[in-house]
Each structure stands twice: as structure tokens, then as C-alpha cells.
């Protein structure tokens, strides 16, 4: 840790958050909010004089509330940066008449009650997301009595109790009587591996953490009896089985079965654990002076903030989704962004360090080349067709298009800023914007080819590259079966799907069209998916006006992690297809025949409109 503070190449911004991110691989512009700390980090020597005089006490977060700290404090002795921080909400010093004691005693005069948040701007080529995890709160699992029985604690609280730097200087005591417990029970998988209550996944480190805790207790207090209640002990890593055996040899008793109830003796405050021992097939009651709940990991509360800032995806469990589970395990789908540690999935220290090394190597590989090729999927304006209406400017999530609507000069695209969603191209009423590699003619050719034969039997689905198409891939790797008459057309973003594509499909005899994109929070193009929804809403109205059942156009949001939903949707859409009659399709084909005619040369239309307007004005 101290190496980080000392390293000449590392600029540490503690007590800071990422406020905004723009740009793309190799060229991210980041705004960092340095929160007001009210203590000058550079000047503070962590002498502690301020702390001594501070009259306010508050629960110590680092000690999980097992001890107190002052309103001005150092988070823990080895903190980096080695400097104090003032919690201004607790401090009286906002009003110097009320207090101001810490400032008085501070030799360096490095306390500033008027300190303010500061925004700094940095430019970086790569980003590594290591935001870690939160711990599961066992309150909902009321049978363990975490909120009711004082001697039931979490494994995190246990860590502080047995730590020589902790509130008890490492003496293992019960919270009720400060006596050393004679028996300690551990309950495993609290909040893990239960789809109904808590989380369905295994939190990875809790088994070995408990094995370690048992060894620590036995090292210090060989006479303490330890019982571990478990579902399975997962000791799969290098050296893990050895530790597990050592903890057994040291006398730890492992009992297969998770207690159904933990009861407190009102007088002794000791605990009774009722459990079905699934190895013996017996109902048992065990007594313990202290119960430790081995709690699992959950995604960080603020994951969605980082997710949106960097347009990342998350798996169904809420942890960040890697670009490929085997081949790109530390890459995000967003180029130039990598994951390490528990942000990606629960893991122990060794795995976090391994993954961090991998992420650093992947970032290095990109950066050392000095330059990067950006996929040539960007939009281009056809100046002759552009009427300078300015719609594209409003649509673009990246502010990559500019257009002077007053001067009537054609819009222009800053190619480096364009991320290639294609929403502008779909929204342009004049066909004046083409998307490279996803042009109108290319997509229309796919529609036509698909519907040339037996159109009535097929389901046409548009899918966005990052989410719903990937959801389809996941359905494949998981072998989730669905009806074989669906045909997908991939676009980078569902926002690219022009309403003309949908109408063309119907005009070609498609019984049903599905437009699928990402959930709003997952959109790879900030908010381009909003345009998809608005366009579909308009299309429903338009179809209805033309006597076409709007439900023949379906809309679904499917994330890259929702292989199951992808298959379910395909089955549901096929059911709807079967209800579409041949007469209906014929009627639709006639009603929409006009769509198949090539777009009128807009330059001519534009001139005609202008002439018309001029003529009207003259009249």
C-alpha cells in the first residue's frame, strides 16, 4: 500500500470519485471530483493532535462500528495517504464559536473548514475498473438472529475482533460480557448459493476464510471448540485442501447442514443452533458462545454509476460482464476498459492480484503501441441530401454532429467522436446520413433475401451487437432451445433500425418483426436506445393507421447476460406469428407497397420544397 503513495508514476486521488467520462479508447477525458477533505493531505503529518482535542465521537466505519473514532480521524493507522479527514457533518467547527479546537492545536494549520469539492480533468488511454464488492447484510435471514442476538456477528466483524490492530487488540471476546468464548460456531454460505433468499452464486472466498479463521482461533486459543456448519467446503485452490486438513487436525469440527434457527439463552446470552446434520441424517442442537455468519459478496452499490459512465454491461448477478468468459476475461466490451478484482466476480486476494496483473498487461498491450485503430463504423453526411434540419444533432448521444440550422449549411460529423450507433442515420428524414458498414442498402438486402421465399413462416428480428445479439449467442452457448424460424439481422445499436427497414419487412410479407436492443442501463451508446423506443411507439401508431395490427411489431430489451430471456422471447414471438393470417399479410403488402420504391432523390425533393415555399411566399 505504501508503495502506491511513494511511486513517482502514480498520482493518487483518495476521497475522490469519477464524475464524468467522455471520449473513447486511447482518448478518455475524465472528470474526477476530489471531495472536500477539510485537511490538507500534503501538509498533514498525521500527528494526531487534532484527534485528541476533538469533542465528537462517532462509530468507526473501519472497525464496523465495534469502536469509535472522532469527527476528525485517520481511517486506520496504515492509511495511504497518511493524512486525517474531517467528517464535516459531524464536526462542530463549521461555526468557530462552537468549537474550532482542532485548528487551534494543528501546528501545520492544515485544517480548512471552508474546503470545497474540486473538479480535476485528466486524459487517459485506458481505464481499469476495480471497484470491488460490498458485503452481504444478513438482516433478512432472520433465523440467524443477527439483529436480535448480540453474540451473532458477521465474518467481517470477526476479522476486526481477532486483529491485533482492532478494537480488542486481537483478544477474541463476546460482545455481551467481554469474556472469551469457549465455543464458536461458523455458519457458511450466508447470503450465497440460495436463489430465493440472498444470492444464487457462490461467493468464492468464504469457505477458505472460515478455514483460516478457525486456524487463527486454534493458534491463539487451542482450547476453544469450533464447529463449522456448511453446505460444501470448496477448497479448490493451490494449498487450500492442505489448510482445510490442518484446521481439521487442529480440532475444528465440520458439520454438514445449515442451521434452521439460532436461539439465544436470555440469561447467558449463549446460542443454540438447530440443524439437520445431512451426513448423519439427524436433527441436532448445538450450543455456542458466539456465532460467526460467513457472509458473501454483493456488487458495489454504486456499480450502476460506473456502468453508465463507461457504457459497461453487467451479468445477471450484478457484477461486471467481461467481453468473453474464457478468451477475454478481463476486457470490457468497451474497448480500452478492463476489470480486476471483485468488480467482475467475487474472488480472493490471490485471484484479485492475478486478475489485476492480467488487466494491467492488457492495458499495457494497448498503450505501448502508441496508437489504435478504431472500427470504421461511423456516420457520413451526404451534403446534397441534407436540409440542415438539425434532427441528427439532437439524436447523437456523443455530440459528434454539428449543424448550423440558421445558415442552412449541411451537418458535419466529427468522425473521431462518432461511436457508430447509427441513430442519426435512422432518424434522418431525408436519408442524408449513411452508416459505414451498416448502410441502408446492405440491411435492406438482408431483409429482402430473408423474405424472398416463405416469408409467412419466418420471424425477422433486429438485434443490437452488444446486448441482444450477444444474448442470442449466450442462448447458443447454453443450448437454450427456441423455434428455428427466427432470422436475426445485426446492427451495432437498435437505434440504427430505421423505420423504413421495419416497413420494408412488412411490405415483403413478414408476418412479424421483432426489434430487440439493450436495457436502458446497458446501452453501449449512452442513450441511443431511447430513440429505438420512441421510433417503435411512432411505428405502432403508423401501423394502426394503415390497418395493420401494431402487435405485429414487437419490442424487447435483452441484455448480453439474458440468454434465457432471448430464448423465451423467441418462443413468444413465434406464438404471435402463428396468429398472423395469410389475408392479413396480403393486405399489409398492398398497404405498404409504396415503401419498396426507392427513396425519392431528396436533392430534387429539397429543391421542389424550396421552390414550393418560394412560390407560396410569392403568392
Amino acid at each position, binding site marked *: 500500500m505504501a508503495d502506491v503513495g511513494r511511486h513517482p508514476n502514480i498520482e493518487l486521488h483518495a476521497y475522490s470519485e469519477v464524475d464524468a467520462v467522455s471520449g473513447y479508447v486511447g482518448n478518455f477525458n475524465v472528470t474526477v471530483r476530489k471531495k472536500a477533505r477539510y485537511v490538507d493531505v500534503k501538509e498533514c503529518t498525521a500527528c494526531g493532535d487534532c484527534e485528541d482535542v476533538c469533542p465528537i465521537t462517532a462509530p468507526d466505519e473501519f472497525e464496523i462500528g465495534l469502536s469509535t473514532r472522532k469527527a476528525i480521524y485517520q481511517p486506520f493507522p496504515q492509511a495511504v495517504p497518511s493524512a486525517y479527514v474531517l467528517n464535516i457533518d459531524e464536526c462542530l467547527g463549521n461555526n468557530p464559536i462552537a468549537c474550532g479546537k482542532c485548528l487551534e492545536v494543528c501546528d501545520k494549520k492544515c485544517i480548512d473548514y471552508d474546503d470545497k469539492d474540486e473538479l480535476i480533468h485528466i486524459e487517459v488511454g485506458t481505464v481499469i475498473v476495480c471497484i470491488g464488492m460490498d458485503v452481504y447484510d444478513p438482516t433478512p435471514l432472520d433465523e440467524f438472529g443477527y439483529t436480535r442476538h448480540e453474540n451473532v456477528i458477521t465474518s467481517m466483524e470477526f476479522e476486526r475482533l481477532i486483529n491485533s490492530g482492532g478494537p480488542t487488540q486481537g483478544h477474541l471476546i463476546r460482545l455481551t460480557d467481554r469474556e472469551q468464548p469457549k465455543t464458536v460456531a461458523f455458519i457458511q454460505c450466508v447470503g450465497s448459493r440460495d436463489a430465493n433468499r440472498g444470492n444464487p452464486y457462490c461467493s468464492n472466498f468464504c469457505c477458505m476464510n472460515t478455514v483460516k479463521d478457525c486456524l487463527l482461533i486454534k493458534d491463539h486459543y487451542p482450547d476453544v471448540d469450533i464447529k463449522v456448519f456448511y453446505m460444501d467446503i470448496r477448497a479448490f485452490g493451490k494449498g487450500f485442501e492442505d489448510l482445510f486438513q490442518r484446521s481439521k487436525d487442529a480440532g475444528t469440527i465440520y458439520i454438514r447442514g445449515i442451521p434452521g434457527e439460532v436461539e439465544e439463552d436470555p440469561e447467558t446470552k449463549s446460542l443454540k443452533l438447530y440443524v439437520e446434520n445431512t451426513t448423519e441424517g439427524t436433527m441436532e442442537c448445538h450450543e455456542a458462545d458466539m456465532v460467526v455468519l460467513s457472509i458473501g459478496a454483493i456488487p458495489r452499490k454504486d456499480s450502476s454509476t460506473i456502468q453508465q459512465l463507461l457504457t459497461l454491461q453487467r451479468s445477471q448477478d450484478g457484477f461486471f460482464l467481461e467481453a468473453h468468459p474464457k478468451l477475454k476475461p478481463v476486457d470490457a466490451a468497451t474497448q480500452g476498459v478492463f476489470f480486476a478484482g471483485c468488480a467482475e466476480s467475487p474472488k480472493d486476494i490471490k485471484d484479485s492480484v492475478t486478475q489485476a496483473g492480467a488487466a494491467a498487461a492488457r492495458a499495457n498491450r494497448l498503450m505501448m503501441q502508441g496508437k489504435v485503430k478504431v472500427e470504421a463504423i461511423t456516420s457520413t453526411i451526404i451534403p446534397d441530401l441534407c436540409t440542415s434540419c438539425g434532427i441528427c444533432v439532437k439524436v447523437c448521444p456523443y455530440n459528434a454532429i454539428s449543424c448550423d440550422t440558421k445558415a442552412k449549411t449541411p451537418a458535419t460529423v466529427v468522425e473521431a467522436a462518432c461511436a457508430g450507433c447509427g441513430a442519426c442515420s435512422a432518424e434522418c428524414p431525408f436519408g442524408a446520413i449513411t452508416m459505414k458498414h451498416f448502410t441502408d442498402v446492405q440491411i435492406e438486402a438482408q431483409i429482402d433475401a430473408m423474405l424472398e421465399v416463405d416469408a409467412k413462416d419466418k420471424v425477422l428480428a433486429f438485434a443490437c451487437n452488444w446486448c441482444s445479439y450477444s444474448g442470442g449467442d449466450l442462448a447458443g452457448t447454453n443450448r437454450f432451445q427456441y423455434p428455428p424460424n427466427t432470422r436475426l439481422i445485426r446492427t451495432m445499436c437498435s437505434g440504427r433500425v430505421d423505420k423504413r427497414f421495419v416497413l420494408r419487412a412488412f411490405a415483403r410479407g413478414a408476418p412479424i418483426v421483432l426489434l430487440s436492443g439493450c*436495457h*436502458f442501463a446497458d446501452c453501449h451508446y449512452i442513450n441511443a436506445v*431511447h430513440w429505438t*423506443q*420512441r421510433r417503435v*411507439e411512432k411505428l*405502432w401508431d403508423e401501423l394502426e393507421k394503415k390497418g395493420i395490427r*401494431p*402487435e405485429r*411489431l*414487437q*419490442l*424487447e*430489451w435483452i441484455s448480453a447476460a439474458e440468454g434465457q430471456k432471448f430464448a423465451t*422471447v423467441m418462443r*413468444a414471438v413465434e406464438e*404471435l406469428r402463428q396468429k398472423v393470417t395469410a389475408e392479413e399479410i396480403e393486405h399489409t403488402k398492398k398497404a405498404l407497397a409504396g415503401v419498396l420504391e426507392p427513396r425519392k432523390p431528396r436533392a430534387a425533393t429539397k429543391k421542389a420544397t424550396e421552390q414550393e415555399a418560394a412560390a407560396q411566399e410569392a403568392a
Partner: protein
Amino acid sequence: MAEETKFKCLRCMSEFRLPYRHGVTEERTCPNCSSNSVRRVKEDKK
């Protein structure tokens, strides 16, 4: 601010009420079949 208004699911055809704010595009899900093909029913046009 958000008033409730009537929506119809274009998959299962059930009707239900959801919060709606004019001009705000939100992700909507049918409470009956979980489809996202949720269309606002314009009540004022009755």
C-alpha cells in the same frame, strides 16, 4: 409528478396502469408477461 396512465402489452394484450411522465422515455415491462412491447393507450381520444 409522475401520473399513472393506461398501457397495453402488445404481447399478451393485458392492460394496466404505469407511471408516465410526458416526454420521458423509460423502459417498461408488462407486469403480466414481462414483455417490453408496452404501448401507451391514449385515453383522451375516447
